[in-house]
């Protein structure tokens, strides 16, 4: 029974033979367990979906009419010979690590995660296991995030300066997760907060499930662009600098991403400013999370996989790279993250 591992890595994704299901598969399968609603984890075309109650509304919004079942954080269900439960990953609201137990063997597929609480997502929960599947999007020692409050102060100072100079501040962030996190960091005293349609649609879904987001004003064709003095506009990166954005008159643009840690990326993509905020764990976050699992076997799915794996192996773990189609933090509009 214990001769073959509980989870294996196949062409379609992470597979559990005991329960005959896949986790975050990238090809169509009969039964998919989904960690969170980002495009590289929740894909269309599966027969049946299982995800947390908190993740499902956004998935339905993105994928349309799917055959899906919700599960509460911490609730254990039996699928075939496997016990399965979902636990907070702290990545975006509703995101989960999936714990799978078969026989005595415990696996955790963490999807995407971050260890610092962001005030909006259910905080990351360390789980004991034998086998831990981890990302390594920012798995280099040059990636270390500053506290969220510190970056929030930087962003608000920039916004206030734009407002004082009569400019509209454009903040580029992908619609699910980062945008809402930024909303919760902004100081509404500075001015009105406007949102691009793509961001506002996700806001509406999350508000409906009870997430505390500040008031925002969706930009529509009827919006009086010149009347928005001192406003900040939250939009997907692809909308920055577009004809849509130019209607607002004098403006500054800023990108928000973990990649902004690198001066080179900042200079290429940042517009006027770049702020370092990521929904993925930094170097210390990854190492802390891995240590806390107590796992000996680590599977590294995406990011700086080779380097990170080598480091883990030199430090006493048994780590290996497993090729997947997850994409890490993107700087693009379509934003898989």
């Amino acid at each position, binding site marked *: 029974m214990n001769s073959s591992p509980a989870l294996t890595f196949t062409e379609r994704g992470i597979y559990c033979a005991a329960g005959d299901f896949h986790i975050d598969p990238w090809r169509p399968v009969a039964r998919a367990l989904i960690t969170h609603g980002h495009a590289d984890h929740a894909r269309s075309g599966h027969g049946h979906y299982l995800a947390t109650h908190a993740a499902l509304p956004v998935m339905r919004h993105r994928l349309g009419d799917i055959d899906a079942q919700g599960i509460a954080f911490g609730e254990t269900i039996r699928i075939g010979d496997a016990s399965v439960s979902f636990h907070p990953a702290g990545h975006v609201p509703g995101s989960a690590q999936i714990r799978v137990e078969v026989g005595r063997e415990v696996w955790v597929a963490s999807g995407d995660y971050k260890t610092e609480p962001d005030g909006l997502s259910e905080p990351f929960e360390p789980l004991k296991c034998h086998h831990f599947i981890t990302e390594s999007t920012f798995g*280099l*020692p*040059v*990636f*270390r995030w500053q506290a969220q409050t510190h970056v929030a102060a930087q962003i608000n100072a920039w916004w206030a300066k734009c407002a004082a100079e009569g400019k509209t501040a454009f903040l580029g962030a992908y619609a699910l997760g980062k945008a809402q996190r930024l909303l919760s960091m902004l100081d509404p005293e500075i001015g009105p907060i406007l949102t691009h349609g793509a961001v506002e649609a996700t806001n509406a879904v999350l508000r409906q499930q009870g997430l505390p987001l500040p008031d925002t004003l969706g930009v529509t064709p009827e919006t009086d662009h010149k009347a928005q003095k001192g406003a900040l506009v939250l939009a997907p990166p692809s909308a920055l600098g577009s004809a849509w954005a130019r209607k607002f008159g004098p403006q500054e643009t800023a990108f928000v991403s973990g*990649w902004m*840690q*690198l*001066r*080179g*990326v*900042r*200079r*290429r*993509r*940042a*517009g*006027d*400013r*770049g702020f370092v905020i990521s929904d993925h764990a930094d170097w210390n976050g990854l190492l802390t999370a891995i240590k806390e699992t107590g796992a000996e076997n680590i599977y590294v799915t995406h990011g*700086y996989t*080779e*380097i990170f794996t*080598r*480091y883990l192996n*030199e430090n006493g773990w048994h780590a290996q790279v497993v*090729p997947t*189609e997850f*994409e*890490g*933090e*993107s*700087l*693009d509009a379509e934003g898989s993250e």
Partner: protein
Amino acid sequence: MIRFAALFNTIDQSTKTNAKVAALADYFDSAPDEDRMWTMALFSGRRPKRAVTTTKLREWAAETADIPLWLFEESYPIVGDLAETIALVLPLSETTNDDSLTQWITRLRDASQTDDAARKAFVLVAWETLGGTERFVFNKLITGGFRMGVSQKLMTRALSKATGKAEAELAHRLMGNWHPDHTSWHALIEADDAAVDASRPYPFYLAYALEGPPDALGAPENWRAEWKWDGIRGQLILRDGQHFVWSRGEELMTDRFPELARSVDFLPPGTVLDGELLVWHPHSDSPASFNALQKRIGRKTVPKKLLADAPVVLHAYDLLEWQGEDLRDAPFAERRKILEELCAPLPVAAPVRLSPQLEFTKWDELADLRDVARDENAEGIMLKRSDSPYLVGRKKGDWWKWKLAPLTIDAVMIYAQAGHGRRANLFTDFTFAVWDGNELVPFAKAYSGLTDAEFREITKWVRKNTLQRFGPVRQVTPHHVFEIAFEGIQASPRHKSGVALRFPRMSRWRQDKPLQEANTLEDLNDMLRIYG
């Protein structure tokens, strides 16, 4: 150093020239004399001598960060900048130190006089006391190289704003042999009668690239044309019985081209020529290819054999000073006339020759000449308006370079590597191959020429089509064909294909072209025979 670091940050964060100029002008207006001299020096490449080897710096940084050296070495190419990598891996510092830029530079130079242990102690203390951008700037001071988008032009604009002096005058003052050690702010920028330095060159006037056909320039009779040589732009200065040779990059190259010493025997003092340094064998009709000149570049002293194998002459195309008078405001036609008279009597032995002009009355005739430019070892045609003065820097309107279309070949992408620095999250460095029978032979690497959107698309594709990984390099399924453009080709036994290309870049993604229709090694060898 906080003031300098803040300036650095503002310039670095801004994409707008006006904001950079304003920040720099502000700094020049308020910083102490010594600091502004050093700032100008750093931004114009006059950096203090490297006090510590980069090998030591890497070791010390890894040790302080408590990571293995290999992990530091793997991170460095991804960040793309050593000073930044060090600043990013070191433990965060809550405080900083506000000694001046000049004080820090002085300390750094003092440290270079001591032994390794003392240097290490100095560097570690600096890392501990300096925070944020100051620490990064300190690392930049050690590793040298403040390449950060402050061009000479931008700096003169800011200086002009801060001092009220004309940009052209400042540009002239800033050229030549000054250094904060022996030049004061007053002497360099303010003194009414700045000591006329015999070696001081004129700022170069640079041409813009002509995109379409020249018809848009108006009547051909208002224009003069000459070959655009594929050499090194240089300024030959003859004053006070001495001679000086300057590169466009403001580098004094006098000793690298000893042939030009004889120019004082043929030309009078008070003469300044603008021209192209070319390898040209005495009885040849055209200059040798750039490959020949390449052997001379970077050699500070030239062995006799090389002098004989690759003799350099200046092909003069403009006269900036004559009989000690600045001629730059005179129309080009007038300058050219004096230049021709000056060069007419020069014997073959003189290291200076007149760069000929091309005869044409219609633009069509010039287009025909351009088509044979490669036979002359020229890379296109220069067009200069007859009545144009000699301006400073790159200005649109009077001078145009009408370059040849590059050579191209269709090749298959076989390896991909992530970029670094600004492109750390994308696959941007590719290896290309051509067919040799059924085998693909790699022949060139290229990492520019695609749009950001194309790089993002290919990055996604590479992730899904990796066959094998060799460290950072991924071997991918041969599938995509790209048109590779390049400026020249030469034989190279070091390369598996036997050829090396000059300035290869991706000019088009041939999504329309099937794999089998990429070019062959035979096609490359044909090009080598014709253009090598």
